[in-house]
């Protein structure tokens, strides 16, 4: 039974990692129905920013908690700026054109950002410091759950709650929902659609940066390519849960994490991805919109 719980928790922390990135995917898709392939790259840039800031702060002699907080804030601001700019450069001019054009533009942006970091930083793996301090009371349970895993799970839960509140109960959330339903109608009733879309990208990119900091400290190494693989898995999680749905992204991430973890534990890790994608196929056959996705009618 211990083994079951060990696998359960490793699936939970892995799933939370996927969920944290999937949230950004799903938010953008929910508003403008664009699969933002550059999202994984924003996550990677967040991790690099945090690495650089934490390096400087360590030399200056800051303590661990303040390094974690300052590095995260720095990464969030910097990545948000990237998300904002990417939207303005690559997606906004294509708004209103066919749905494929921004998709191609997103793939191009993703390739561009990867190679930009490759050239500007390094092609090698670099070590990422353990920014998250050890949590004392978790030590006896370290075989189930490390403190980094714990922080990732808690962060994902907090982000889920905050996003839900933001979208359901605030004015800007209302505007977001309006924009998602129909951009022209929303603009007619006085919603600044451009601003709402920018805000969505800024929030999504900020989340990616938080993910970059936490996952960087979990894995202990980063390079220019981490965004691609993480992005694919997070995208799968978002589709699994129902793309466009905030709780769906988290649920999708967790289901994916558990499938991989139990698949590895009880069958074989050789087929980890096979289990994950079989599950995706099965769910899409029976629920084409994903677990929590609403099958919306074609807009007229």
């Amino acid at each position, binding site marked *: 039974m211990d083994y079951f719980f060990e696998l359960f928790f490793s699936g939970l922390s892995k799933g939370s990692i996927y969920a944290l990135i999937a949230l950004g995917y799903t938010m953008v898709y929910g508003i403008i129905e664009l699969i933002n392939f550059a999202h994984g790259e924003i996550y990677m840039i967040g991790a690099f920013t945090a690495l650089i800031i934490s390096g400087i702060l360590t030399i200056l002699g800051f303590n661990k908690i303040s390094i974690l907080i300052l590095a995260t804030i720095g990464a969030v601001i910097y990545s948000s700026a990237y998300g904002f700019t990417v939207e303005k450069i690559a997606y906004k001019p294509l708004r209103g054109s066919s749905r494929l054009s921004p998709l191609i533009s997103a793939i191009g942006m993703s390739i561009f950002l990867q190679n930009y970091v490759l050239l500007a930083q390094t092609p090698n793996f670099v070590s990422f410091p353990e920014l998250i301090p050890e949590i004392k009371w978790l030590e006896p349970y370290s075989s189930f759950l*490390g403190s980094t895993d714990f922080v990732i799970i808690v962060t994902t839960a907090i982000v889920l709650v905050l996003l839900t509140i933001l979208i359901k109960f605030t004015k800007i959330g209302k505007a977001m929902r309006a924009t998602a339903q129909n951009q022209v109608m929303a603009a007619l009733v006085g919603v600044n659609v451009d601003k709402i879309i920018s805000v969505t990208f800024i929030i999504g990119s900020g989340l990616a940066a938080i993910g970059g900091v936490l996952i960087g400290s979990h894995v202990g*190494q980063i390079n220019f390519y981490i965004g691609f693989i993480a992005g694919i898995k997070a995208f799968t999680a978002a589709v699994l849960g129902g793309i466009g749905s905030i709780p769906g992204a988290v649920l999708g991430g967790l289901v994916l994490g558990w499938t991989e973890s139990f698949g590895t534990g009880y069958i074989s*890790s*050789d087929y980890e991805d096979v289990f994950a994608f079989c599950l995706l196929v099965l769910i899409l056959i029976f629920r084409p919109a994903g677990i929590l996705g609403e099958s919306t009618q074609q807009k007229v």
Partner: protein
Amino acid sequence: MKKIFVLIGALFLVLSLLTPGSCGDVIKIGVAGSHSGDLASYGLPTVNAVKLVADNYNKKGGLLGKKVEILTGDDQCKPELATNVATKMVSDGVVAVIGHICSGATKAALPIYKEAKIPVISPSATNPALTQSGQYPNFFRTIASDDAQAKLDVEFILNVLKAKKVAIIHDKGDYGKGFATYAKKFIKKDGRAKVVLFEGVTPGGVDYSAVVQKIKRKKPDVVVFGGYHPEASKIVSTMRKKGLKIPFISDDGVKDITFIKVAGKYAEDVYASGPKDISKNPLHIKAVEEHKKVFGSDPGAFFDNAYSAALALFNAIEKAGSTDYDKVTKALRTYYVDTPVGKIKFDKKGDAEGVGFSVYQVQNGKFVEIKF
């Protein structure tokens, strides 16, 4: 040190003046491999190496009093071209061949040389079957075969770590899985230990804790990993964080300074096999110096192996006193010769004894060679 080389060089020059080469009578040595195309960089350093060694001999008055002549053959690492090259070499009357470079091309060419009774020494063909199948008594190589690393690591696990239960993890790639499969084979053959887990992980994953939990459940005495350092450092740090302190042993893909940088304190005590350190071997230093002097650049891939192959071949011809096939192959298997890759002779199957890998351990942030 440099002065000595200059002196030796001057001596050679004087000697070459004293004995005007006995022209007309030559010993032809073939150098075959990829000299053009994508893989030219694997083959050309071998040509340079053999040229340097042959020049040295020619300056001294040649081999058995005859001038050494080099014939090159370009196979572009393609088996179908390799057979053409081999046929041409045979008809041109070479007495021995240094090459070919790629395992596939070598395999295709070998039967032709075997028929014509020509010894072949490859500096770079690592496919284990080339020697181990016993099909090619005319084949020798100055590089360790692909399974040499796994063999060494398994010996280390059984004799030094004295493990009874072994977990083997690999990255599903050609290199990593190949290494892991050989390790499994050798452990099974020996019988002293059991393989309790043999699994592949997906490279680039964000988290390997599930597979680490699985390792923990099987309670092995040692974990063997086949693959490269990014996955190795993730797995070993997850193991240590989950309180699993058993030895971790891996391959040349992990014996990389980046592994220590990335895994940090978790890298300590990790074992990894890697090529023997030849950087302090005076013959290696001398060969590199010669190359720089003659060709004006640093030597490329397999240069040391090719230089050693040429030295071993010429030495064997000298010791045999003739270019007769039986005598030369016997001499190759009998006499030790000092080369840039160490003091070598060839075993029954044609692999060079004394060439290959060592086990290293990370101690205080450095790879330290372990003798056993």
